[in-house]
């Protein structure tokens, strides 16, 4: 009786699972690597969901799901250090939190040997990347913390404001970097101009002296 009560809803859930992420999708080749850049402030959570489908050459259609397909996900922080480098199945979910503000690079590529059997293999990748406040799952938070609708809305507003604050801090950091770059350019232009003028004068003097001694040696002067 208990098993039967669990059975039907579980099947429904499985059916929903199979439908999967129905968002944006794109096509990549067999060994092609596709990278996305996320410019984010620090302590920001990023959640990525993907689902892959393989092209079936005989049926000329994308198979709904292909077990055995693997996708390698690699995430690099702004300094180039690898934050996440993992192999997932044909359907996966990856999460990371940034510890330094800046450009994070999320790269996906498939390294499945099964695709070698299909000439000109193509993969359809459904991808969804949620950053910061968008990564929060509000129904889950409402159920976990037992919040009323109004409290949940207030929580959403608080999360949004927190994200705005983080972005503003990041903005300040970026402006400082921009200012340092501009001042460095200013310094470089100044010093190189002076150096080049000095070198020009010195070279001129050397030329005159050298030629003068040359012509005196040749008894032309």
């Amino acid at each position, binding site marked *: *009786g*208990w098993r039967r*009560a*669990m059975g039907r*809803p*579980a099947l429904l*859930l499985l059916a*929903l*699972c199979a439908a999967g*992420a*129905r*968002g*944006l*999708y*794109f096509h990549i080749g067999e060994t092609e690597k*596709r*990278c*996305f*850049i*996320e*410019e984010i402030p620090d302590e920001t959570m990023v959640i990525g*969901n993907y689902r892959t489908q393989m092209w079936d050459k005989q049926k000329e259609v994308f198979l709904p799901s292909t077990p055995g397909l693997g996708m390698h996900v690699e995430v690099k922080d702004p300094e180039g250090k690898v934050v996440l480098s993992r192999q997932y199945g044909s359907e996966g979910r990856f999460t990371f939190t940034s510890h330094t503000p800046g450009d994070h690079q999320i790269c996906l590529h498939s390294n499945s040997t099964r695709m070698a059997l299909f000439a000109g293999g193509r993969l359809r990748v459904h*991808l*969804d*990347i949620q*950053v910061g406040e968008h990564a929060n*799952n*509000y*129904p*889950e938070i409402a*159920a976990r913390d037992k919040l009323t*609708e*109004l409290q*949940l*809305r207030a929580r*959403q*507003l608080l999360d*949004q404001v927190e*994200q705005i604050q983080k972005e503003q801090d*990041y*903005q300040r950091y*970026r402006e400082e*970097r*921009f200012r340092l*770059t*501009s001042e*460095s*350019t200013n310094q*470089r*232009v100044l010093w*190189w101009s002076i*150096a*080049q003028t000095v070198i*020009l004068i010195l*070279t001129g003097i050397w*030329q005159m002296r*050298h030629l003068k001694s040359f*012509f005196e040696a*040749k008894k*032309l002067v």
Partner: protein
Amino acid sequence: MGRAGARSASALLLLLLVLLRAERPRGAELTFELPDSARQCFHEDVEQGARFSLDYQVITGGHYDVDCYVEDPLGNTIYRETKKQYDSFTHRAEVKGVYQFCFSNEFSTFSHKTIYFDFQVGDEPPILPDMGNRVTALTQMESACVTIHEALKTVIDSQTHYRLREAQDRARAEDLNSRVSYWSVGETVALFVVSFSQVLLLKSFFTEKRAGPRAPHS
């Protein structure tokens, strides 16, 4: 048995809600690098009558321009622009199906571009999935919350646009910084090369005609 049944049912309902929320992503905001002479396409399934919008901007690369076109499921081009730096396009879907939008850098031979796009479909889903079926009007508190939420979304949007502009300017400034170094070093080297070769060339003129000036003397 009843209580356990009710608990498992509510747990399943919660799972269902979670899955429903996870199953309907309503927008995609991505930044990717488009190599030279390349074209990248993205596809999204849109319901009939739904309104979608596409914002895109070129952040770095070349002359900061890209070609973009949007096609409906029947293959008609509903939007096409060439060499645009940024643009915004909204459209109401008349046909249900997969809409395709592509960015092309085929006109460029050696500059790869970083492109940001934001593709939003339909309206934002309610914060709890069952809110769509409410029969009563919103209370004052709730409508105040909704107003604040919309206003904050505008703030976040403008922050994003500001960040993209700043990224563009910063990329140019860093490019200028490194270019100043290279050109300065290059010019110094050229200066040395030119002055030495001038002297050598001049010396070579007089070394060849050594026999010449002697003739009038004798």
